[in-house]
């Protein structure tokens, strides 16, 4: 990103700006020239089938994966290639896919680690009380090992752990994955309440319909590229989301470049498109 562009971003209240990001797993390109932006207080959804590059995008932003090309700017500061702990220190929390709580650590210890870099005795107690308000179950389970919690409780713990650092940008990777419909409702209600608190959120979801209901803006990815970017209403009218999830050519109309291997995305993940379409339909 050029300095001018960076200044322009800061002026527009941008928290995060990703420009022409490419990431490879060995010889396989997972992301190609992906660009996206998140403004202060916005909830932005990243949609797409398995293998589209959603999680890879979050991991590259969080510093887990090193970009091969492109720039990531957070609050005007380049963060591409920084270590995960350095990125976290600047105020980005990633709640990883599959929750990844520390199962042998207690709920208390999980939350304490969440505040590892930002710990202050006073604010820690405050934040803890805040988390108990949001997730009463965590108070009941405070001394239990994280691994003893149910899937939904683990997801709540993972989100609470991510919030303990008081992030300026919260990235949620598939928070509703593998949860029962009731719990999915709870998680989306929670995301909505976090948004209403003014937390800037970048949300990766397979449950496209629900994610679009909440989002201010959305990006649709397939095979490592952005196929569509815009407001949820525009996406609903311009894109046949179910078709995208089923991997059909031309589902995004003009937004899909000719010859884009949209079908290969679904053939690379057999069995998945149908499940995803169920959520999107």
């Amino acid at each position, binding site marked *: 990103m050029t300095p001018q562009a960076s200044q322009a971003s800061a002026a527009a209240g941008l928290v995060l700006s990703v420009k022409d990001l490419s990431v490879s797993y060995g010889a396989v390109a997972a992301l190609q020239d992906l660009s996206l932006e998140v403004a202060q207080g916005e909830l932005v959804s990243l949609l797409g089938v398995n293998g589209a590059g959603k999680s890879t995008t979050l991991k590259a932003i*969080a*510093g*887990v994966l090193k970009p091969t090309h492109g720039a990531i700017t957070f609050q005007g500061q380049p963060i591409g290639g920084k*270590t*995960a*702990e350095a990125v*976290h*220190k600047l105020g980005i*929390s*990633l709640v*990883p896919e*599959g929750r*990844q709580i*520390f*199962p*042998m*650590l207690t709920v208390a*210890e*999980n939350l*304490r*680690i*969440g505040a*590892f*870099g*930002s*710990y202050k005795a006073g604010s820690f107690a405050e934040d803890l009380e805040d988390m108990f308000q949001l997730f009463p179950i965590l108070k009941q389970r405070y001394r239990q090992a994280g*691994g003893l919690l149910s899937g939904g409780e683990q997801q709540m713990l993972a989100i609470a*752990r991510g919030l303990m*650092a008081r992030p300026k940008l919260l990235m949620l990777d598939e928070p509703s994955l593998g949860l029962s419909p009731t719990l999915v409702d709870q998680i989306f209600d929670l995301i909505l309440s976090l948004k209403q608190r003014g937390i800037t959120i970048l949300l990766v979801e397979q449950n496209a319909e629900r994610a679009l209901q909440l989002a201010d803006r959305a990006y649709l990815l397939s095979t490592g590229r952005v196929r569509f970017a815009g407001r949820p209403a525009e996406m609903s009218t311009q894109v046949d989301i179910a078709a995208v999830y089923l991997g059909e050519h031309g589902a995004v109309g003009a937004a899909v470049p000719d010859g884009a291997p949209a079908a290969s995305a679904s053939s690379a993940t057999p069995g998945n498109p149908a499940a995803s379409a169920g959520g999107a339909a």
Partner: protein
Amino acid sequence: MSLATFIEFVVNTLSLGSLYALLSLGLVFVFGIMEMVNFAYGEYITVSAYILYLLGINTSLPWPLVFLLGILGGAAISVISEIVAFRPFRGRSVEALLVTSFAVSLILQYTAQITISPRSKPVPLPGFFNQSVNVAGVVTPIRSLLLIAVTVLLLAGFSLLMKKTVLGIAMRAAAEDFTTARLMGVPANLIISCAFAISGVLAGVVAIFWVGRSGSAEPLMGQAPLLISFIVVVIGGMHSLVGSVVGGFIYAAIANVLTLVLPTSLLSFREAIMFAIVIIFLVLKPAGLFRGSYVEERVG
């Protein structure tokens, strides 16, 4: 079995088990966090032993200070070897780290051979190390009792460190899932350096008591403790700190039982019988006694 024999057996098992427990804890601690079997671990003991030798021969420092410097020396060589040798290979394959640790092991062995001597050197130790006391009619070396006491204190302190301090919690988190711990802001370098420092401290404490039994230091002296700790860790489970401690006491108990029950003619086969027992054990319980319960769920 007479009461005296029984007391002797208990004291021997507890003291030998203490030594093996500390030894194995140092090895498994780094493995838990780095997923790396550190074959240079035995040489940290060697380095500590030589520091005891050099200070004991060349200075008239009081023995507590000599012991302390020996332990700190073990920690220092451990941390230095991590920064110099292992850090550049971090994030590469497990095999790369394994081979690097072999290299560090050989470098330290040869350094000792070239700079000090290929032969064993007598290490001066405080007099009480070779004295005994009478416990319920059994002549018991003071150093055995001291070793048990030191181990109890160290394990208690270690347990407090791991459970009550943020650093300890962060190290446990990193042992479970390093990537996620880093995502929470836990710095990789700090955690790994701490792990190696703790491993080195344990090697330093072991060195004092290992030298206490043999009375000497030699370049290849690290190989026997490395092998023992490796076997103990395999018994206890590679992913469990508790397992490595329990495994140490089990291994010591097996060794002492064999010493008691084997006829004199078979005593020289004790090691072979022990290894046979370990093999049978592994067939029955391949993951060791204590499995890191959630390790198999780890992704990436």
